[in-house]
């Protein structure tokens, strides 16, 4: 129901482009749309105001008015400013420090994703950094909170501090740190109960936990679909407990995620990680470029390639990235991708990462693109000859009938696959035209769908 920022700006700038130059009024009109789009993306009002002023300062006067393609300039200014407000291009890693055991304290509202994220971080540190990690639950309030962490700890193969009935959070924290010291753990992750930032008593409790454990990281875990209250939540947690980093969860949803901008702006804390699913490996480094793209309604090719890289051979991923860049994308590549998709997990998560997918979302819904479809699509491609896979143009009606018969599908299925392939390869070509400075380069940007690429 809401237009994406790129959609909104696209509309306005189409008009502007025709006129060529911007008046002060034009800028104001554009800024009004930017304001509305950001608000619809759940960026908090005070942050929106600052943001829009920042864009105005950069836009009015200089570049835009003299620019040949003013619309594009404004989009670029908005994008760059977004990246900056989100904390810049370089992701900030978790700080594990030099003197183990390092405490990582998880805090946040009820149900924001702390416990799940604690387990995800444990897995990440154990696997990628070879750290010896201990999980501890300080949640003595929520029913079965400790069992939940116990189950997750088992899944990520990280030990959990054995709970003692009736022990209070501060005591648990101390016991966890003591165990960490004695048994040589590198990191002790302290999961806490969800609490409201206006709950004085519980905020004091977690502040005390912080005081006795001196965590290197105090991570505020917040839901990507949080609304305007995000500024209050972030400010309060930061003031009352002291936050070193933010984690944005449920980024696998379709919320625009404006809360990221709000919280980053009011706390100045880096957003370090984002949760992209319920499974324990659904955690990724925060990347401003990707989240900015989301807020702007662009796809997330960087994410797709990155996720692939973890499951596929590194060179394969790089080869694929190169192909994407050059706009060479054959049905064989599609088949490879389908195979990787199967390895990587659910379709939905990945679909969101494919650029321009918003546009063909409905077609995809119609095509009923679910996980069962992948093996079928693979079968279709398998039923083709090598020559056909390399050059699908030769696929006339009789060849399509043969392929359908050979793969146990219908001609419609074959047509649908070819159409999807065509759409994907068109998109990739369009992206490829932007060159290295574009999508895959730092500092470049991708024009919103429907806008011509930058020259």
């Amino acid at each position: 129901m809401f237009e994406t920022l790129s959609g909104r700006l696209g509309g306005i700038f189409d008009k502007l482009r025709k006129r060529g130059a911007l008046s002060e009024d034009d800028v104001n009109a554009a800024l009004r749309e930017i304001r509305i789009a950001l608000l619809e993306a759940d960026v908090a009002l005070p942050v929106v105001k600052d943001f829009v002023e920042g864009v105005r300062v950069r836009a009015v006067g200089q570049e835009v008015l003299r620019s040949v393609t003013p619309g594009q300039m404004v989009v670029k200014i908005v994008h760059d400013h977004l990246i900056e407000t989100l904390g810049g291009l370089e992701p900030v890693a978790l700080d594990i420090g030099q003197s183990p055991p390092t405490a990582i304290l998880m805090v946040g509202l009820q149900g924001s994703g702390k416990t799940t994220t604690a387990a995800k971080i444990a897995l990440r540190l154990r696997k990628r950094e070879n750290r010896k990690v201990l999980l501890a639950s300080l949640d003595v309030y929520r029913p079965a909170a400790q069992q939940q962490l116990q189950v997750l700890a088992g899944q990520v193969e990280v030990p959990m501090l054995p709970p003692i009935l009736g022990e209070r959070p501060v005591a648990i924290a101390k016991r966890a740190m003591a165990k960490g010291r004695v048994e040589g753990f590198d990191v002790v992750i302290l999961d806490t109960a969800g609490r409201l930032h206006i709950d004085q008593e519980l905020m004091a409790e977690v502040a005390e936990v912080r005081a006795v454990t001196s965590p290197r990281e105090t991570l505020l875990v917040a839901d990507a679909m949080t609304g305007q209250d995000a500024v209050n939540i972030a400010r309060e947690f930061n003031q009352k407990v002291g936050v070193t980093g933010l984690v944005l969860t449920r980024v696998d949803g379709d919320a625009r995620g404006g809360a990221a901008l709000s919280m980053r702006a009011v706390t100045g804390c880096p957003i370090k990680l984002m949760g992209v699913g319920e499974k324990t490996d659904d955690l990724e480094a925060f990347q401003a470029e990707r989240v900015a793209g989301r807020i702007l309604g662009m796809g997330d090719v960087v994410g797709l390639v990155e996720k692939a890289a973890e499951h596929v051979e590194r060179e394969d991923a790089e080869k694929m990235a190169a192909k994407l860049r050059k706009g060479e994308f054959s049905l064989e590549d599609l088949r490879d991708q389908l195979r990787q998709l199967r390895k990587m997990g659910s379709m939905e998560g990945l679909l969101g990462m494919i650029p321009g997918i918003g546009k063909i979302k409905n077609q995809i819904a119609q095509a009923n693109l679910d996980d069962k479809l992948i093996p079928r699509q693979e079968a279709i491609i398998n039923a083709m000859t090598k020559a056909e896979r390399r050059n699908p143009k030769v696929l006339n009606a009789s060849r399509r009938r043969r392929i359908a018969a050979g793969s146990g599908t219908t001609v419609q299925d074959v047509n649908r696959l070819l159409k999807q392939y065509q759409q994907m390869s068109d998109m990739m070509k369009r992206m490829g035209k932007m060159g290295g400075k574009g999508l895959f380069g730092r500092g470049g940007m991708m024009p919103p769908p429907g806008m011509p690429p930058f020259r």
Partner: protein
Amino acid sequence: MSEGGGWFARLKAGLTRSSDKIGDGITGLFTKRRLDDAALEELEELLISADLGVETAGEIVEDFRRTRFNQEVTPEEVRAALAADVARVLEPVAMPLAIDRARRPHVVLVCGVNGSGKTTTIGKLARQWKDDGLKVLIAAADTFRAAAVEQLEIWGERSGCPVVTAKTGADAAGLAFDALARARSEGFDVLLVDTAGRLQNKKALMDELAKIVRVVRKLDPEAPHSCLLVMDATIGQNAHAQVEAFRDMVEVSGLVLTKLDGSAKGGVVVALARAFGLPVHAVGVGEGIDDLHPFEAKAFARSLVGLDQR
């Protein structure tokens, strides 16, 4: 965390804190002031800050412009009038969930995104209905999340209602089917079905939810008789997409708004009421078993604009 005060007091405690800004804003804005363009714009911003959304906030303020433009108004008047406008939108949707005792059981399916408060709300509802003299059975159809079953079992103990469970990883629809069969044969009045949290854009998970409905209908073609969408009051504009998707998938019959004891105002329900007209059955105002209350349009609206409860 569960004790203390009546619901008005608790809601007010939360909302006064949260509305301080709104309240102050209006006070600052409108003392001895004419309702001019600038004033109206700021009023609109105050509503936006409560998550009403740009469109709804704009329309409510337009009403103000039509009827009160250029009038000299006091802050009290502005708040009261604003609350009245908001309450008018909410009144038609403020209705408690009525259990039809003739169903035996009346099946209530509870769904929503992850962490919104489904399981807790089920515990609270079970307790209320039990207190009303109903025989309540709970089905733990979240067979996915770690310790979801254990969590619900504790709520079963607290509410004194039996819980039908299966192992993690079991088929949710099958579990719901078994629970309904048991509820029918043992004469339960209500069957509450907890489901795993799911994001509305995940097609496979949404299909699973639809499957639960399909399967329970094999036993009772009219089940589920109610389908509650549980939503966290901190949510922003994504609430629209949630209602739309869950409504399309499982015919949501009403909403429950949780965590209203926080500082988020849940203003998006005003927009939802206008867009969908779905009943709002109850609000969660804490983590305790008694912290669930009927949704009251006037109280909600007045709190939203920073008016004290009387």
